[in-house]
């Protein structure tokens, strides 16, 4: 019971700082799950991240996988609701006022001010995940190649994920 409560409260709280979506706060998930609670080791965490990337659906599903690993399907459910609930409620309540806030200076100020921080969070998230996988030079090259292909081509992300799986399997990286 207390593990379920811990899962719920931890992810509930992260929801309030996850500007830039779930991808932005993956290092925070890592801190909670690996460093603070020792629910899993670093390797398991990065492997769950990989599974979430390869699966269809929103990026937030890494939270479901963490919850499942910690406490079965109930853990998955509780963790997922924990991360989704706070802002769903806010969206539901704020929705009717959003249009009316159009000319309020605070709305523009928050939009302008929060965006660059979200950029910093997301970039840090990517770098920290790559670092936690402890890649060699070939691995770093794969990360760089992915960034380049993703920005420069219209290749579907699924192909890149398959490429990573293939490189991993054949021991190229």
């Amino acid at each position: 019971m207390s593990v379920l409560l811990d899962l719920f409260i931890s992810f509930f709280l992260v929801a309030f700082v996850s500007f830039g979506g779930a991808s932005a706060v993956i290092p925070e998930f890592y801190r909670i799950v690996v460093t603070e609670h020792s629910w899993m080791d670093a390797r398991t965490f990065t492997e769950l991240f990989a599974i979430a990337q390869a699966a269809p659906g929103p990026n937030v599903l890494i939270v479901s996988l963490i919850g499942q690993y910690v406490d079965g399907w109930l853990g998955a459910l509780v963790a997922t609701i924990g991360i989704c609930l706070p802002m769903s409620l806010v969206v539901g309540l704020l929705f009717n006022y959003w249009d009316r806030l159009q000319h309020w200076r605070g709305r523009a100020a928050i939009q302008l001010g929060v965006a660059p921080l979200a950029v910093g969070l997301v970039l840090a998230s990517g770098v920290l995940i790559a670092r936690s996988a402890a890649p060699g030079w070939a691995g770093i090259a794969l990360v760089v190649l992915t960034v380049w292909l993703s920005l420069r081509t219209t290749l579907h992300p699924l192909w890149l994920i398959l490429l990573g799986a293939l490189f991993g399997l054949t021991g190229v990286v």
Partner: protein
Amino acid sequence: MPAPPISDSAIKFAASARITPGPAALFRGFARVGLSGFGGVLPWARRLLVDTERWLTAEEFNVLLGLCQFLPGPNVVNLAVAVGVRCCGWRGAVAGALGLMLGPFLIALLLGLLYARYGQIPAVQSVLYGVTLVGAGLIIATGIRMGLNVQQRAVYLPFAAAAFAALVFLHWPLPIVMIGGAALTVSLSWWRLAREACQ
């Protein structure tokens, strides 16, 4: 100068062409979005909402997306809730969010079970290692794309760099970086907007 009549009628046409779905349609629609999205669901949500089903006009979509990206939390879940509320209140919100999440959630649980069973096999670990690196690269690419979309880059991108450095090199806790950083950047943007308004 008043708008030319042609665009007037175009707006009327768009408004009348918009369809308001019930909870069941919302559930089915977002279920399709959730299951077809790999590495980011937003483009699929746009295609469904604006192009295929015409539940929203392009402009309405941008306004709702603005709200959802303005708030923290999983953006796509927020979007499903916003569209659901708009169409049929809280029942629509539940239907949209559930539709979006249920299929991917069950698939994730299935993959999680497979992982618990076969995760120790070296070949599986090698595959996951490669996918982790690609996943990290995809997130970095998303960050770069977001960075290119930041307005008034010369003023605000240094804050992105500072947040990045605080997290990666100084290992500051993320909530502190986010809340402290937002206090700084939002004050700055408020001040700049006030100055613009005076001029």
